[in-house]
Each structure stands twice: as structure tokens, then as C-alpha cells.
């Protein structure tokens, strides 16, 4: 494992990103250990702000989304929707005094698509510069946040 876990990045990524197969993910998990938690999703358009918020609340210093390259979404608008949802999440966290940059989205270029590994490294480096999240910096949470069952 190359990295210690002084920072944790939650990385949600579209499975259509180049190099985002199961084997590659396992390799990256070995490389980054607890520093990056990888969450493959069938389409970035399925991601909701609550997923990003939950990551920030529970374990992540930053939560990022990697979408498939522009114009290449198999579901046509998934990566466009993801952009709007990330923006909404940024507004929410800014409202409580967290830096907007703790949530972000990266969309590859159609002509020169980067692999998941390349994206992960870039985003992780950015996360390291951000410092520890003030949400997690207060020690272990003593909040019982389990949702009660909805009727």
C-alpha cells in the first residue's frame, strides 16, 4: 500500500470510464488502501446528492465523481445530470461552511479519455492539499444516524 489514510477520498465512478473494470479497481484498492474508497456505478446519472453527503458525513474528506467522457454516456444524459447534482451538493455543503471543493466532478475528454487510475491519482493529489475535513476532524462521531424504517 503506497498511501496512509490521513485523508480519505470517496470516488464514485461510471463503469464506462476506461480502465474501470473489476481487476483494475482491485489493483487500485491495493495501491491506495483506505485512502480512496472506490464506488463503481452503472451510470453517474444515478448518483444523488445524498450519496455524496453520506460519504462526507461518515468517512470522506472529499467525495468526487468521475463520469464517462462527454457525449459518450450510454444513457444519453447521465453525465450531464451528475454535473447538476454535484453542483447541488456543493451548494449544500457551502451552506454549512464546508469548502465546495470537497465535492467535485471530473468528466473525461472524448478525444483523449483518461483511465480511472489517472483520474484517481489527480483527484487524490488535489484532496491531499485540501486538509482534513472539519466534519471528521472532531474525532469519532457519537451520532447514531441510522434511518428508522420508512412506512
Amino acid at each position, binding site marked *: 500500500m503506497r498511501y496512509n489514510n490521513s485523508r480519505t477520498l470517496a470516488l464514485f465512478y461510471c463503469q464506462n470510464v476506461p480502465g474501470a473494470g473489476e481487476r483494475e479497481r482491485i489493483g487500485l484498492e491495493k495501491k491506495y488502501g483506505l485512502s480512496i474508497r472506490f464506488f463503481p456505478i452503472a451510470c453517474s446519472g444515478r448518483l444523488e*446528492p445524498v450519496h455524496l*453527503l453520506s460519504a462526507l458525513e461518515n468517512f470522506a474528506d472529499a467525495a468526487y465523481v468521475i463520469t464517462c467522457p462527454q457525449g459518450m454516456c450510454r444513457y444519453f444524459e447521465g453525465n450531464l445530470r451528475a454535473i447538476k447534482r454535484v453542483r447541488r451538493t456543493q451548494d449544500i*455543503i457551502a451552506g454549512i461552511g464546508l469548502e465546495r471543493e470537497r465535492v467535485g466532478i471530473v468528466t473525461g475528454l472524448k478525444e483523449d479519455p483518461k483511465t480511472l487510475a489517472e483520474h484517481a491519482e489527480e483527484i487524490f493529489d488535489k484532496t491531499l492539499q485540501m486538509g482534513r475535513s472539519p466534519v471528521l476532524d472532531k474525532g469519532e462521531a457519537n451520532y447514531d444516524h441510522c434511518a428508522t424504517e420508512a*412506512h
Partner: protein
Amino acid sequence: MITAQQKPINEIRGMLGPYKRILVLGCASCVAECAAGGQKETAMLASTLRMMAKMNNEDVTIHEHTLDRQCVRDFVVRLDEIISSYDAVLSLGCGAGVQAVAEMFSEIPIIPALNTEFIGETRAQGLWMENCLGCGDCMLYYFGGVCPLARCSKQLFNGPCGGSVGGRCEINQDVDCAWQQIIDRLTRFGAMDRLEMIYPPKNWSRKQGGGPRKIIREDQQR
């Protein structure tokens, strides 16, 4: 459908100030349809409040729960088993839901997390439009299914003001002229004669003139 929007987070936090055990209560009906208070939004608000509390070193417990309908007692009663564990309930119901929960649980503060806006329709994904004032005396038949009270900026009953251009209201170019729509529709139905009648001013006594309104249907009662 009743539409609503979440209050600013700092206003919500201010109202929750003194409470240590908080239930964030969603409603899976109208406010879920308008993406303000359903299960998803409830989870988001609860998570946001927990993060806010952690950042401020506040020792609070925040749980979330969503009812099918906060405005129907048969659903609200399901809180009976859990509500005593909390100091306050933060409701993501509409004004009716908040009050229904408050009525049933008079010992605990019920705090509104939403501003209730209007009765309207989902025109498109992410777009809700007001189209009914709940006046108690529906006249949509006479106006081709377009309510001049809810949709004409000047609430005119007897024809257009003359200020619209290209089917748009002179008050705001983003607003469709309700009277243009009324005339277009009645023309299509061959029913323009409905506009030959003079409509008297609205009788608002059927809305709120007699205090809070109620509907009693004996055939629906137990």
C-alpha cells in the same frame, strides 16, 4: 399537489437550537413529488444537520424517518412508538402535515423545515407551476380549463387586460398569458359563447371568509 421548498439551512438550525434529540420527518406524498420533503430529501437534510453539528462540536442525535403522509392521522399515529425518544420533530411536510403531526403530539415541538408554496402541477422534471388557489368554487368549465385567478397575473374574470404580447404576460415575459390560453382553448372547443356572460367578482367567502374550511362526508366516516 401541494408544493414546497426547503427553508435556508441556517434558519432551520436556528429553530433547532435548544434540542438535543431530533427526528427529521419526511413525507412521501406531495412534497416528495416536488423533491422537497421525500425520503431522499429527508436523508439529505438529516445528513447535512449532522455534519453541521459535528463541525460545531454539538452533542445532538439526529434520526430520520419518512411517513407516507403527514396530513393523514392513520399514518401519523405510526410515530407513536418512536416519538417519545425525541425532544423535537423537524417536519418536511407541508403546512398541513406539520400541523397534523403537531395536533396529534401536543407535547413535542414540531418544527417546519419547508416553506409551503402553492397548489400546482409538475409541468416538467424540476418545474412546478401554480395553477389553483383552492377558492372553493371552481369555474374552470367557463374558462376552458385555465384558471384566471391562479394563472392571470391580474386575476381578471371578464376578458384579457390587453397588455399581453405574443401570448406572454406584460408583467413578465416568462409567464404565459392565461387569457390567451383561455381564448385559444374555448375557440378550439367552439365554446367562446361562455365568455359572453359577465362574471361577478369572486365570492371569497367560500375560501376563508368563514375561518378554516372543512369538508364533512358522512359516507366516508367510520
